[in-house]
């Protein structure tokens, strides 16, 4: 023990005797205990070259590119869409005019579950949480005047992802854009739907086949397309801890990699197009450590377990969204500050793209004013804060390095556990990750209710508030409008051609062929998403929720 350290211990003891600390235990946002002080002792077992290293170099703890945000800022990509295609098209053009650099499409729940707007299950939901898309006709309107060779487009679509991708390719063809030039992402991550988000349609096995079909098709035809965005975001929103977020996400990704290899693909043909999607919550240092830990874990797993050779296969590239569940309905302007902190976490964590939530999202879909502030928050961090000037500037902090190590070890324990259960699909069928997430969510909420965790404006620093005005409301007329469009479409299109394309699809499903070309034919004949998914529902059946409480 050095003399200085002895001095510290002495003054500390004296101070603690006279002034006890505020709390007995200090916990992170994920209830991990934090030490009073981190010193070189905490990092003495961490080998810099092996575990931390350099950006752009394995294991990529410090970032996937050698220049990171000095070379190019992250893509500012606001998730948007509501009402019908015309209305959403206007919002996208507005966002592009405001300096946004990529599109991110929110679909309504009917589209996400493969139901047409006139399906009885769709009542009340059409155009609510995203844009309603029934057929290629809506998709053409959605991207009218937006050149698809100039933007990159991310689509939050999972169970019917391959069908929406086919529609996007068909729109590109109409714009005379070669599909090899298309850039973007489909979320295409079904496992977290069973676990946390809920927009599944088919059972796991055929769902995994649809995903590997997109891997194969894109590697040959749309080489710049991110074929999947393996998402921890929704796992975290459902209440998981930071460790569970990256552990379950990586375990999902392992399942996709295995499925693709089993279907005969080579790891280095598809792994470079796998991207990730994480959450950014308020505990700044824990979140930054989480992103670093995720990068390192993925690189090691892909290299050591799957024997990848191409460095691009090992790079964990990710999108971040600030944490929706951290926003409060009370004193909504406070959310601007929360989002700013979360933006810092994402940027300091080395994100490739970012969506910042708007202050009013605990109340409704965001208004245009709120979305602008959210985008400006990113621009301020990018151009004024200075944090994008140097790569991974918090590396070497005793606390950050220790937390990065701890998080990756704890996440690896979960991944081992899931392996021992037989992989993620079996684990989900057994309700394992669902139960873990729920326990964390319950604990967190209880901490708030017992005032062990302070949420400003909710359980402390509350104030009388006025009714929130200026909330965005989706016009209830959208549903009828959409139903009428659908009716007209069905009268106008060549219904024989539609029938033929759906028959061909049925045969292809029975023969286990790659379905993407058949989806392309079907959407080009203006078959609806509901009609196409009905073929698949007939052949594959539907998933039933594993009820865990």
């Amino acid at each position, binding site marked *: 023990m050095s003399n200085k350290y002895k001095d510290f211990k002495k003054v500390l003891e004296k101070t603690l005797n006279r002034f006890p600390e505020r709390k007995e235990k200090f916990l992170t946002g994920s209830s991990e205990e934090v030490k009073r002080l981190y010193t070189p002792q905490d990092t003495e077992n961490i080998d810099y070259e092996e575990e931390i290293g350099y950006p752009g170099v394995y294991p990529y703890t410090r970032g996937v590119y050698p220049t990171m945000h000095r070379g190019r800022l992250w893509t500012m990509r606001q998730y948007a869409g509501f009402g019908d295609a015309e209305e959403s098209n206007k919002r996208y053009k507005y966002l592009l005019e405001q300096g946004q650099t990529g599109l991110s499409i929110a679909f309504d729940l009917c589209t996400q579950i493969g139901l047409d707007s006139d399906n009885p299950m*769709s009542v009340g939901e059409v155009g609510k949480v995203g844009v309603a898309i029934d057929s290629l006709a809506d998709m053409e309107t959605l991207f009218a005047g937006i050149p698809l060779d100039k933007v990159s487009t991310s689509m939050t679509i999972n169970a019917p992802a391959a069908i929406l991708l086919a529609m996007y390719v068909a729109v590109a063809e109409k714009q005379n854009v070669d599909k090899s030039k298309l850039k973007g992402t489909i979320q295409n991550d079904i496992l977290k*739907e069973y676990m946390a988000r809920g927009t599944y349609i088919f059972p796991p096995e055929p769902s995994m086949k649809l995903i590997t079909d997109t891997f194969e098709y894109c590697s040959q035809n749309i080489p710049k397309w991110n074929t999947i965005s393996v998402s921890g975001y929704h796992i975290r929103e459902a209440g998981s801890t930071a460790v569970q977020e990256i552990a379950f996400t990586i375990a999902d990704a392992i399942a996709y990699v295995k499925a693709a290899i089993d279907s005969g693909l080579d790891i280095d043909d598809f792994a470079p197009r796998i991207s990730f999607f994480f959450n950014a919550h308020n505990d700044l240092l824990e979140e930054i450590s989480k992103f670093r830990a995720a990068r390192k874990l993925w690189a090691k797993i892909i290299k050591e377990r799957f024997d990848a050779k191409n460095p691009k296969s090992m790079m964990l590239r990710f999108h971040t969204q600030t944490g929706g569940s951290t926003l409060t309905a009370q004193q909504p302007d406070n959310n601007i500050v929360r989002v700013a902190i979360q933006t810092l976490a994402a940027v300091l964590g080395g994100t490739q793209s970012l969506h910042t939530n708007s202050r009013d999202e605990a109340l409704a879909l965001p208004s245009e004013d709120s979305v602008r502030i959210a985008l400006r928050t990113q621009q301020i961090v990018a151009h004024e804060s200075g944090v994008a000037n140097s790569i991974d500037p918090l590396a070497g902090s005793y606390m950050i390095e220790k937390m990065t190590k701890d998080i990756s070890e704890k996440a690896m324990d979960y991944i081992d556990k899931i392996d021992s259960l037989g992989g993620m699909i079996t684990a989900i069928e057994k309700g394992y990750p669902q139960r873990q997430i729920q326990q964390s*969510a319950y604990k967190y909420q209880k901490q708030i209710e017992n005032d062990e965790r302070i949420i400003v404006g909710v359980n402390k620093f509350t104030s009388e508030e006025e009714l*929130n005005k200026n909330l965005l*409301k989706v016009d209830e007329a959208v549903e009828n409008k959409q139903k009428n469009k659908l009716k007209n479409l069905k009268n106008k299109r060549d219904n024989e051609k539609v029938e033929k394309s759906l028959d061909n699809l049925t045969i292809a499903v029975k023969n286990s062929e790659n379905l993407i070309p058949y989806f392309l034919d079907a959407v080009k004949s203006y078959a609806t998403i509901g009609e196409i998914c009905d073929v698949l529902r007939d052949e594959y059946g539907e998933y039933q929720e594993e*009820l865990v409480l």
Partner: protein
Amino acid sequence: MKNKTRILIAKPGLDGHDRGAKFIARALRDAGFEVIYTGIRQTPEQIVTSALQEDVDFLGMSILSGAHNVLFKKVMELLREKEMDDIIVFAGGVIPEDDIPNLKNMGIKAVFTPGTTSKKVIDFINKNK
């Protein structure tokens, strides 16, 4: 005669955001009530059937997608049709304040918005059981 208050927690519509519904279900169960949870994606018809079969005293519904005005109304109509309107209905989720009077007019006894504690919901049940 039943000795325990029975509560059905239901998720009408298509949204999969069940964190709130599951938290409330568990908190009510921990508070000693008999709780049945439907799972997600329930139609109004399915919810009313479950309420009938489970012979519940309370029905709590959660929606975060914005479909509350339409779907809650449908459930309330069905309850009336089947003469089950003695069931006390409460609701939660992302529900704008200016929609609440309308929901109360439909017969929904309480609407709990984000930030509500489980204690408040438990108090509501105890007061109305």
